[in-house]
């Protein structure tokens, strides 16, 4: 029963990922593409949950759905005339590009995905991995943890300086 639900959830999430990813490429309005990309990120977070990588799922939602999406939406809204009806999203070589992408997929990606001997880890999933991560973060990795704060500070100050120059 639980197995069936997991499979069902996986196929549903995969469908959302594929459809929204296609929408990102094919939609005419670049703002709609960005919204579709958020849906893609969210469904990928769901797949992480299915893989019992809860922390990765949380990070996916926080960083990709939160931060990256916001940056992209801002970039779109700050750009001149990018969402105009007249703005083109493809050029004359769209068919050729699709053919090349399809050929590469059939020649490289698909055979590798099909034939490779994927190693499946026999290790059990660590229960409460996030708690373990939190413990390690402030004991073993206390220094990198504080250095990360300094790195974020540098990024913040740098971003403000660069944004104010323009």
């Amino acid at each position: 029963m639980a197995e069936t639900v997991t499979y069902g959830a996986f196929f549903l999430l995969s469908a959302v990922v594929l459809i929204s990813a296609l929408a990102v490429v094919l939609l005419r309005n670049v703002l709609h593409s960005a919204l579709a990309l958020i849906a893609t990120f969210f469904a990928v977070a769901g797949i992480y949950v299915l893989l019992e990588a809860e922390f990765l799922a949380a990070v996916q939602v926080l960083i990709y759905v939160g931060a990256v999406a916001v940056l992209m939406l801002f970039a779109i809204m700050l750009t001149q005339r990018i969402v105009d009806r007249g703005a083109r999203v493809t050029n004359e070589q769209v068919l050729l590009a699709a053919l090349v992408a399809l050929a590469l997929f059939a020649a490289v990606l698909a055979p590798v995905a099909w034939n490779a001997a994927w190693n499946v880890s026999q290790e059990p999933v660590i229960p409460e991995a996030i708690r373990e991560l939190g413990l390690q973060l402030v004991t073993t990795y206390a220094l990198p943890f504080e250095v990360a704060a300094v790195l974020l500070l540098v990024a913040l100050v740098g971003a403000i300086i660069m944004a104010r120059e323009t």
Partner: protein
Amino acid sequence: MLQAYVFIAILLIASLVFAVTPLLMAFVIRPKRPNPVKNATYECGLEFESFPEEARPVWVPFRVQYYVYALVFVIFDIETVFLYPWAVAYSQLGLYALAEMFLFVAILVFGLAYAWRKGALEWV
């Protein structure tokens, strides 16, 4: 462990149904008699045609200064990623870990103070 996420899935589906059902119902039962006046663009009862010329384009680019908000948001979003595992493990951690997190947050508060001081948070 995955069972706990079934409730999130149910909540997600329920929220979707909750949002889509009224839209669908309105689409099905509403009378469809469009006329030019009904189809006209308006905002808060004002007709689009009465707008001044400079207010006509609606897809105007935002001011670049707003991008600073996004950048500050991203930094504190990443801070949350570090806070999260710390908060989960909090009950097993001592005073030392609390002090470490205070230092972590203090370093970033310094950045927030810098942003404030430089007027990056001012409404422009």
